[in-house]
């Protein structure tokens, strides 16, 4: 079937967005990327280390043609800093997509609603394809859409916690009201979290730590890919309703003991 996802005019076959941080080594990272079948990869922008200028330029390990690059604004503490990072990312010529990520709290790295809204509006006006990382506040998500977000990316839980979908109800409200794709970003711990999000109707999942820091990142990447397919299939298939009482699955007539 051609159940594709479209963001910023780009048609995607995979609903799995993968981060590129924290892998044990580039080989494992590339294997994980390959098996994940992801088409969208996230990155960060940092100063070149002038003592070793050629090091950890992550892009030397991935084939640029095959992917959509989604740089993030991590490190930004307000809208202006996020805009500055976004422009640098775009100037690379690699991508006009940007993940707005603005955080002031080092404990939680949770996004600042007001600054995220400001940066999203400004960057959308400048022609970026903006995917803001946001809290799961349904009103805020709607506001982000109204100011031009190409997709909204509510967090399941704080970055790297692996706590899974803390508030499935809010997520379902966001999906219900959204006019743009909803990508669940951050806080995913394992495959069942991904399936739950997809069953709620999420359009895609962005995760990084859950794969990169698993004991076996490549196998977990494969599991996550299956999880996306499982959740999407279940969402499209129309699950059975939950009922309080049982209904036999075996035939309920012609019992041997019937009199």
């Amino acid at each position, binding site marked *: 079937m051609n159940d594709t996802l479209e963001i910023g005019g780009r048609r995607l076959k995979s609903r799995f967005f993968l981060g590129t941080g924290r892998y044990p080594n580039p080989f494992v990272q590339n294997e994980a990327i390959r098996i994940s079948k992801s088409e969208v990869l996230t990155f960060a922008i940092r100063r070149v280390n002038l003592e070793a200028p050629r090091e950890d330029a992550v892009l030397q390990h991935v084939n640029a043609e095959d992917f959509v690059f989604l740089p*993030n604004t991590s490190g930004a503490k307000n809208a202006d800093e996020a805009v500055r990072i976004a422009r640098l990312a775009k100037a690379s010529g690699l991508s006009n997509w940007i993940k707005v990520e603005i955080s002031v709290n080092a404990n939680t790295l949770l996004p600042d609603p007001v600054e995220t809204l400001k940066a999203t509006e400004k960057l959308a006006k400048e022609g970026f394809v903006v995917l803001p990382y946001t809290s799961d506040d349904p009103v805020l998500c709607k506001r982000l859409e109204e100011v031009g977000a190409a997709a909204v990316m509510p967090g399941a839980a704080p970055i790297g916690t692996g706590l899974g979908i803390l508030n499935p109800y809010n997520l379902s409200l966001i999906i219900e009201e959204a006019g743009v794709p909803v990508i669940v970003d951050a806080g995913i711990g394992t495959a069942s979290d991904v399936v739950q999000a997809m069953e709620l109707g999420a359009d895609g999942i962005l995760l*990084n730590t859950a794969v990169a820091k698993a004991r076996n990142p490549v196998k977990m990447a494969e599991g996550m890919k299956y999880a996306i397919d499982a959740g999407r299939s279940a969402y499209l298939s129309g699950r059975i309703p939950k009922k309080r009482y049982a209904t036999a699955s075996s035939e309920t007539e012609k019992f041997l003991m019937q009199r």
Partner: protein
Amino acid sequence: MRLEINGKPEETLAATLAELVGNYGLEKELVVVEVNGKIVDREKWKGFELENGMKIEIVHFVGGG
């Protein structure tokens, strides 16, 4: 000439941005350069003359989520 590069004071003999980037062996790398808060496109590096005290940022993509 004295510059601030990536937040640190640096001495350089480079006259242009192209030379400066070249000194770090980054001319072929996928880096982006900002001078005094303004991005300078790659094609302008050659003609871009450095001046004392300029604040320069040389950035690139790294792993991130």
